[in-house]
C-alpha cells in the first residue's frame, strides 16, 4: 500500500484507538469500572442530567477525578514528546536527536529537583512544574547561545552544546538527589520518582495549558511541513527552495523547547517516546512531515496511554513510573522491529 493511502487509514484507525485506549485506561484499575458506566459517567459530566445516576459517588470520583485526567494527560504528553522529537530530528537532521539531546528535559529536572529537595518552592513561591518549566527555558537559551557562532547555528554545534549541557545538568541533578538522601526524609525518593516520569499527579486544572500548547504547536509544525522536509534535505537545498534556514531553525528550537518544557513540567522526564515514536511513524508513512507529524501525535498519545496502564497495574497496588515502562516495553519492541525490517524505512 502506498504511503498516502496508508496515511488516511492510520489517521482514522489511530483516532479510534486513542479514544478506545483512553476508555480502557479508565476501566482498568484496582477497582474495575464497567466500560458502559465509564461512558455514562463521562456523558453525565459533559451534559448533566441526561443520564440517570446509577453509580456511587466513589465510582464517579475514580472515573472523573483520578483516571480520566490521567489518561488525557498521557494523551497530551505522549503527543507532545513524539511531535517534538520529530521536529528536533529534522532540526538537526539526526535520527538520534530527542528531547534529551538538547538538555531541555535535564534543565527541567534541575528545576524540579531543586524544589523537591531544597524546598526552594516554599522559599520562592515556585511550584514544582513552574520551576521545571523555567529550568527548561533557561537551558534552551544557554544551549542556543553556546551553539550559535556569528548568528549562525549548525546542527553539529547544536547537538554538541546540547549534549555537553545535559551532562552538566544531570551531574547537578544527581548531586542534589544524593545530598537529599539523608535519613528521615523521603525527598530523594520523590525526586527519583519524578525523574523517572510519572502521570500520577494529573488534575483537570493542569490539562488546559499543555493541551492547548500541544495542539497549537503541532498545527504550527504541520503548516511548516514543507519547510521541515526541505530542511531534512540539507541546508543548501533548503535555502535554494526559499527557506530562511537560520530563522526557521531558531523558531523550531524555541517552539519545541516550549512544548517539551510544558509537558516535562507536569509529567517529569519521560524517555523513549520522543526518540522512537518518530522512527516508528516513518516506518509506517515515510519521511514527509505532512504525514509524519499527525501520525506521530496520535501514535505518541496511544503509546503513552497504553504504557501507563501497564505501569499502574503490573505491580499493583504499587505503581511503576511510566518513564520506566516506556523504555522497558518500547526498547525490545523497537529492536524486534529493527531486526524484522533489517533496513529501516526511516533511517538507513
Amino acid at each position, binding site marked *: 500500500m*502506498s*504511503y498516502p493511502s496508508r496515511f488516511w487509514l492510520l489517521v482514522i484507525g489511530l483516532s479510534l484507538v486513542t479514544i478506545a485506549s483512553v476508555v480502557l485506561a479508565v476501566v482498568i484499575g484496582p477497582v474495575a469500572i464497567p466500560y458502559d458506566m465509564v461512558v455514562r459517567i463521562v456523558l453525565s459530566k459533559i451534559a448533566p442530567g441526561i443520564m440517570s445516576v446509577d453509580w456511587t459517588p466513589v465510582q464517579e470520583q475514580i472515573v472523573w477525578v483520578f483516571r480520566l485526567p490521567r489518561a488525557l494527560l498521557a494523551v497530551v504528553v505522549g503527543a507532545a514528546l513524539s511531535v517534538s522529537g520529530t521536529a528536533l*530530528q*529534522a532540526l538537526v*537532521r*539526526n*535520527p538520534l536527536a530527542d528531547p534529551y539531546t538538547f538538555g531541555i528535559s535535564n534543565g527541567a529536572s534541575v528545576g524540579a529537583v531543586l524544589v523537591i529537595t531544597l524546598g526552594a518552592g516554599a522559599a520562592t513561591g515556585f511550584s514544582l512544574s513552574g520551576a521545571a518549566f523555567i529550568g527548561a527555558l533557561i537551558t534552551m537559551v544557554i544551549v542556543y547561545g553556546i551553539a550559535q557562532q556569528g548568528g549562525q547555528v549548525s546542527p553539529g554545534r547544536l547537538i554538541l552544546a546540547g549534549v555537553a549541557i545535559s551532562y552538566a545538568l544531570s551531574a547537578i541533578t544527581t548531586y542534589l538527589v544524593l545530598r537529599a538522601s539523608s535519613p528521615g526524609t523521603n525527598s530523594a525518593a520523590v525526586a527519583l520518582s519524578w525523574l523517572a516520569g510519572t502521570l500520577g499527579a494529573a488534575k483537570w486544572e493542569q490539562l488546559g495549558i499543555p493541551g492547548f500548547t500541544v495542539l497549537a504547536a503541532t498545527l504550527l509544525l504541520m*503548516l*511548516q511541513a*514543507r*519547510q521541515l*522536509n*526541505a530542511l*531534512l*534535505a*540539507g*541546508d*543548501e*537545498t533548503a*535555502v*535554494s*527552495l*526559499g*527557506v*530562511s534556514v537560520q530563522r526557521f531553525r531558531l523558531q523550531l528550537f524555541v517552539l519545541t523547547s516550549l512544548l517539551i518544557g510544558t509537558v516535562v513540567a507536569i509529567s517529569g522526564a519521560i524517555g523513549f517516546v520522543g526518540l522512537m515514536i518518530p522512527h516508528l511513524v*516513518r516506518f509506517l508513512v*515515510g*519521511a*514527509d512531515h505532512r504525514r509524519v507529524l499527525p501520525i506521530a501525535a496520535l501514535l505518541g498519545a496511544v503509546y503513552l496511554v497504553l504504557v501507563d496502564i501497564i505501569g499502574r497495574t503490573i505491580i499493583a497496588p504499587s505503581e511503576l513510573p511510566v518513564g520506566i515502562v516506556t523504555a522497558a516495553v518500547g526498547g525490545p519492541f523497537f529492536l524486534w522491529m529493527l531486526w524484522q525490517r533489517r533496513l529501516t*524505512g*526511516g*533511517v*538507513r
Partner: protein
Amino acid sequence: MNIEITSVSVAIQEKRIVEGISLHIQPGQVVGLIGPNGSGKSTLLRTVYRMLKPEAGYVRLGGDDVWKLTARESARRTGVVVQETPSDFEFTVREVVQMGRTPHKDTFALDTQTDSALVSAALERVEMSGFDERPFSTLSGGEKQRVLIARVLVQQPKLLILDEPTNHLDVHHQLEILELVRGLGITTLITLHDLNLAAMYCDYLYVMQQGQIAAEGAPEATLTRTLIQQVFRVDAIHTRHPSRDCLHLIFIPLEQPSPTNEPPTPA
C-alpha cells in the same frame, strides 16, 4: 533572465575566497564556471542562490538584487542542484521532486492537481516516470541526479545553477545529464571539472583562479595552452572532437619525467 554579478567579494573567516568578480549571463546561455579545486567556484555560486551574502558587490537576477528579494522570491527565480550529503531520512522520489514546489506554496496551501501534474511531467522529462514510490536513497548516482533536476524543473526557475553535476558519475551518465541540461533551454550557470565537457556543452566560460576571473570567452578562444598551463598546471594538446564541431583537449603532466629507454616496470 539576465544575470549580472558585479564586483562580488566573499571572505570566510577573514580569508578572501572570492575577490571582486564580475560576470554576466545572457538569457538562454549555458555558462560554465571552471577552475581548479579551491578557486572559489562553489562560493561564487552560493552568492547567487542566496546561501552566502557577499561582503561587497551585488548579484542581480533580472535587474533585482537577490538580497533585496525574499528567500521565496529568489527561490522562484533560481533553481539549484548542489552536491549535498543526503540526510539519513528517506524520502521517496516523488516527495523529493515535490519539494521543488516549496517556494511556490503558501503556508496554508495544499498540493493541487497542477502541482501533481508538474511533478509527473518533470519525472517524465528526466525519464524517471515509474520511480515515484522508490526511496531516493536506493537510486544510482545518475538516477539521483536526474531526480534532482526534476525537482528543479517543478520549481520553474529562470536560472538553473548546477554545482559539479557530473561528479561521481560514469561517463555515460555524465553525458546524459549534460545533454538533459542543455536540452532544457533554461539559462544555466554550471561548474565543471572536466574541461572537455565544458568545451562540449557550454556557450561561454569563466575561468577562476584564486578567487578571481583568469579568463573568459567562448570555450575555444578561452582554453588556450598557456591558460591551461597557468591555471590548471597541466600541459594540453589541442585537437578537434571528431564528431562534434568543438574543441577536444588531451592533457599531459607539465613536468614530464625525461624519457628513458628502460622498459616500463610491470605493475
